[in-house]
């Protein structure tokens, strides 16, 4: 497994290639990539703050739970912080498993937990000013299904 918390951009395609090459024979690979939405052109950038130290620890814990819970060959989490432009990749997860059900479930689990349990905070910067993204009740509720 690999966890990367970084300000540098990353290429979801290149990461998918590298991850897939490393698990050849696993049968199923699922990836999720989160992109900065342009929201109809009103969003010009996103600023992501995080809690260095706790971030890595929290993500490693979440990935560890997923590896215990599902039969995974490998897992990957990349999450950026700092300033991102519209359309840029914010983060990605990848999971590899013998069977597709495990790969899908683990990827969704990772996303649900990264949303609400990893210490990142997003601020949207638009033409009319900037605003911290509010946590959604639905994101907290999503944790209950696991």
């Amino acid at each position, binding site marked *: 497994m690999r966890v990367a918390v970084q300000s540098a951009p990353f290429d979801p395609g290149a990461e998918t290639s590298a991850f897939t090459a490393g698990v050849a024979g696993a049968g199923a690979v699922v990836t999720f990539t*989160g992109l900065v939405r342009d929201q109809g052109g009103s969003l010009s950038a996103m600023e992501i*703050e*995080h*809690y260095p*130290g*706790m971030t890595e*620890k*929290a993500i490693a814990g979440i990935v560890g739970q997923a590896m215990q819970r599902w039969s995974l060959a490998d897992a990957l989490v990349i*999450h950026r912080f700092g300033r991102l432009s519209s359309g840029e990749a*914010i*983060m990605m997860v990848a999971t590899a498993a013998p069977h597709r059900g495990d790969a899908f479930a683990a990827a969704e689990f990772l*996303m649900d937990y*990264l*949303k*609400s*349990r*990893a*210490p*990142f*905070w*997003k*601020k949207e910067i638009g033409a009319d000013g900037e605003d*911290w*993204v*509010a*946590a959604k009740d639905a994101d*907290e509720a999503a944790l209950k299904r696991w």
Partner: protein
Amino acid sequence: MIDVLYFAWVRERIGLPRERVETSAATVAGLIDELRAREDRYAAAFADLSALRVALDQDLSSFDAPLAGVREVAFFPPMTGG
């Protein structure tokens, strides 16, 4: 002495990312009461605890948790990663 960290709008409202705090509070809630009493900007940041989360030594915790042995307390809004 304890390190107190603030993130996102909590940091902006209080006006600094971290500080060393001398406290005799037994719990997180006790520390919050001391901070609130300092200045309006602290009172404003801690006005609604339901909008806040706390981590003790980088683990999510709760407001009634004891502070004994804790070196680092962080206050922040609900997380919005992913």
